[in-house]
């Protein structure tokens, strides 16, 4: 038996509500972390996973307090320890890699100093030795030219580089246990895959134990030996990672795995009903009761205990796990999407370029934008009525910029956006007439920010109805109720405020608001990325249903390629504001042809330990598109030479109607995929 380094015993953490009630965030958690193993803690937001990770460092956030239990490290309870003693353990024995390194690095201190600080505190090295060590650490996390990086301030690095610095800082104290709190959330797909690969390498190289906290089963699958699944403050399932991902014997994990869209499977995943209960809402019975497909009468009043199953080496909190055990292969069934494509083209984007460059005085007078290397250039897409077209690419690829221009929030530098073959929409909002504004509606990423917190749901949905159709009184109310029913919300939601709704419900209200204008085109800007996985599937299914009912056209922007695969008819791949590939989703996903598409698809993490990401290109961040030649030349692994650097590649069209912009001949591109 391997040595245990951290022992969590009956840990409960909570806060006092305004009424004086004790509300639990963590409920009676017990687990052990063994030496050298990587444990993944997975759960949705509010499941208590971060609180648990912080407790393992003896840290409890302001406002929370320990109600019972202990976190034992080297046979002393961290939660009872004095700060002075904790300072000797934190960073030296147990180190943390934070979620958002951009926020977690102190802005006024140089990178080198921040790593040096950890070295000063946790090693006996002399000054020159420390300098040497800083370079070594930065090298280890594969940052280019460590000496110059050390002299930079955090904001001068890209997101991926900041995350690497955070890893280097955590490694400075050569800890026995590394806690990682969503370390790759918020990074681009390719960067995320690289950082995970680095973490895997470090785990093997140093033999450090890791606790990896994430909501993303795909990332967890890549790194962990063992998985702990948390739901509303409890451990519901704990066991070896392969078994949990392949044969989950808890209904929540089962449903969660089914609701994740997969690259290999077109169509929408099945959604789980409802959402996770608020802390303190459940007093009796199983906390998953409301959403469970396998529930029985006894689940309502009795809480199941965590039961250890010897033969599977797994603990599970469910009365019914035996019935799941026999048939729990995650056979994912998907709802095939019906295409409601019509021949009529509804939106023509031709030769559009958009620039963020500041106008100088002369340009302002002449009302023009002179920028020979604009952020977005040469976009040609014709969108058919009833189509769902997805724009994909990493951050900075210009996908949101294009959406903003279509919506009229940003004027174009050149080119034409035409609606219905005749109406020119190239101008910005001020010059569009009300009907032009009505036909295009936006749904934003984060409903917390896009819904006015001081308006009730009724007022929010009433606004477009009043503005575009002049509805009043009873008729207005009838329309609002109809719209709410369409997004599966009851009439009683009308008087609620956004803060009284869950994330999924808020996004439904945002969807209802967009549909209230009876638009022809809806622009969806990362609409599911702020939502939990189990809720995401429900929102995607809802969007698909509404589209079939109303014949709406969607322009869907997302960084999540699996989500795009699930919902879209056609995909446009963008890099640095230039199109790389446009084609029907099934072709783009099955025959990744453009080198950049290959890079993107290779980096997608699937919740399956057998599918490893393929890292094709380096995750360098380019600040500006190159002046001439192919936009992807800087990172392309298949670059041909001068032709790629000097000439803009031509469009090549495959038999299936897939357009690829690359200098490599089609035959050559296809041959490589067969191998």
């Amino acid at each position, binding site marked *: 038996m391997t040595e245990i380094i951290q022992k969590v015993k009956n840990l409960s953490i909570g806060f006092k509500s305004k009424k004086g009630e004790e509300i639990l965030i963590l409920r009676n958690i017990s687990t052990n972390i063994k030496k050298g193993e990587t444990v993944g803690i997975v759960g949705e937001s509010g499941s208590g996973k971060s609180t648990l990770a*912080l407790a393992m*460092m003896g*840290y409890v956030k*302001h406002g929370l307090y320990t109600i019972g239990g202990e976190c034992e490290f080297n046979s002393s309870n961290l939660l009872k320890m004095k*700060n*002075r003693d*904790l*300072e*000797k*353990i*934190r*960073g*030296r024995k147990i*180190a*943390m890699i*934070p979620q*958002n390194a951009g*926020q*977690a*690095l*102190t*802005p*006024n*201190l140089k990178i080198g100093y921040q790593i040096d*600080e*950890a070295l000063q*505190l*946790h090693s006996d090295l002399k000054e020159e030795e420390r300098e040497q060590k800083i370079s070594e650490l930065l090298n280890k996390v594969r940052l280019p030219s460590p000496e110059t990086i050390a002299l930079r*301030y955090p*904001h*001068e690095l890209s997101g991926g580089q900041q995350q690497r610095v955070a890893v280097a*800082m955590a490694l400075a*104290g050569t800890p026995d246990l590394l806690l990682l709190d969503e370390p790759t959330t918020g990074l681009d797909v390719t960067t995320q895959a690289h950082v995970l690969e680095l973490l895997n390498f470090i785990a093997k190289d140093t033999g450090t134990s890791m606790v990896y906290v994430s909501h993303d089963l795909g990332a967890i699958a890549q790194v962990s030996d063992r998985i702990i699944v948390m739901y509303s403050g409890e451990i519901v399932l704990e066991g070896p990672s392969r078994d949990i991902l392949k044969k989950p014997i808890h209904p929540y994990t089962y449903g969660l795995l089914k609701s994740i869209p997969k690259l290999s499977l077109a169509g929408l995943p099945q959604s789980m009903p409802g959402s996770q209960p608020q802390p303190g809402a459940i007093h009796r019975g199983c906390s998953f009761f409301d959403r469970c497909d396998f529930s029985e009468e006894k689940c309502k009043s009795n809480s199941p205990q965590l039961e250890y199953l010897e033969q599977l080496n797994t603990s599970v909190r469910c009365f019914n796990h035996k019935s799941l055990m026999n048939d729990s292969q995650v056979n994912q069934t998907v709802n095939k999407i019906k295409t409601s494509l019509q021949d009529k083209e509804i939106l023509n984007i031709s030769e559009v370029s958009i620039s963020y460059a500041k106008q100088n005085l002369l340009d302002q007078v002449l009302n023009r934008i002179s920028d020979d290397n604009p952020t977005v250039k040469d976009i040609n897409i014709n969108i058919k009525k009833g189509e769902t077209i997805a724009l994909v690419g990493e951050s900075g690829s210009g996908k949101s910029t294009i959406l903003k221009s279509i919506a009229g929030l940003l004027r174009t530098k050149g080119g034409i956006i035409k609606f219905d073959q005749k109406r020119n929409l190239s101008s910005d909002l001020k010059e569009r007439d009300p009907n032009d504004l009505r036909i295009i509606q936006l749904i934003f990423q984060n409903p917390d920010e896009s819904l006015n917190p001081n308006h009730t749901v009724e007022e929010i949905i009433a606004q477009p109805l009043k503005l575009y159709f002049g509805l009043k009184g009873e008729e207005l109310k009838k329309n609002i109720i109809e719209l709410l029913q369409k997004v599966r919300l009851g009439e009683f939601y009308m008087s609620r405020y956004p803060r009284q709704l869950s994330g999924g419900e808020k996004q439904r209200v945002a969807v209802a608001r967009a549909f209230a204008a009876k638009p022809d085109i809806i622009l969806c800007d990362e609409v599911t990325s702020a939502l939990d996985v189990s809720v995401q599937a429900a929102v995607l299914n809802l969007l698909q249903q509404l589209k079939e009912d109303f014949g709406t056209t969607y322009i869907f922007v997302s960084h999540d390629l699996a989500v795009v695969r699930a919902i879209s008819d056609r995909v446009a791949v963008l890099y640095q504001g230039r199109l790389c590939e446009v084609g029907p989703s099934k072709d783009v996903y099955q025959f990744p042809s453009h080198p950049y598409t290959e890079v993107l698809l290779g980096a997608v993490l699937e919740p399956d330990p057998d599918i490893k990401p393929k890292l094709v290109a380096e995750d360098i961040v380019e600040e500006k598109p190159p002046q001439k030649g192919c936009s992807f030349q800087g990172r392309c692994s298949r670059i041909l030479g001068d032709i790629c650097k000097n000439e803009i590649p031509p469009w090549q069209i495959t038999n299936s109607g897939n357009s690829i912009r690359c200098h490599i001949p089609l035959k050559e591109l296809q041959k490589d995929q067969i191998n």
Partner: protein
Amino acid sequence: MLFLIIKRILLGLITLFIVSLITFVGTEILPGDACTTYLERQAFGEQLEACYRRLGLNVPAYERYVSWAVNAIQGDFGYSLSGEMPIKEVLGPRIKNSLVLASAAIFIGIPIALILGIVTALWRDKLPDVAISTVTIFAMTIPEFISATLLILIIAIWLEWLPGIVIVPTDVSFLELLPNIILPVIAIAMIMTAHMARMVRSSVIQVMASEYVQMAILKGVPYWKMVFKHVLPNALLPAINVVALTIAWLLGGVVVTEVVFNYPGLGRLVIESISNRDLPTVQALAIILASIYVSINLLADLMTLMLNPRLKTLQIRK
């Protein structure tokens, strides 16, 4: 960086130009002028003409503006009406007095404000915070004419420790002025310190709740090192601009306190010259106070820029 400084200075000069225009136009539009005020009931006929000629008021307005502006740039603001003294000489000692008052308030007020703000933030919701916060909120809400009057009543009249009002000539030496400024300084510093302490407190609390401070704790950085290295530099940066505005306010805006204590500073001069309809002096004061605001704000912005690495690189990149 240099380009930015030049740009900011130019913008400041434009601001001053606009201020001077507005005050000039304003004084033109007002009924009556320097001569009618000075001559009062004799303001007609020959005498008025003579006065206009003497003060150069008989030429068109734009010419007067240009000649005034040219002289003002050289530091010559013309003559004050009441004493027929050069305004330069009237202003000199007043500026000095205001500077003395302001610097005393700053040297006492700012360190106290910083300490109180930091202490209340670090011991948030504990006894020191509750006690100090109660006092500062109290000090903020009492208007200065009440606190000033109470100070006079208690310290000057009942205890007879210090003079209640300033009855020295305007141009006394610093040492003679010293005992006179103690009460005004206390009255001003109370309000100023309370405001700044509250601001520092919320700024420090905000930084203490940030992810990078949590990270520093989890890195094992000892508490006080964390406070001095990770918290204070980031929390006090926004304070620079507030300090700048406070200094500008101290130099020209503490009118009420100056009047209550009969203190011969710039603030009181503003009141006096307005009630005497001494328009040349009002004009000169407007320009001087505007220059103080503009230059102190410029300095504060440059300091923030210098100390905040984030802004610095942004500027260089542009």
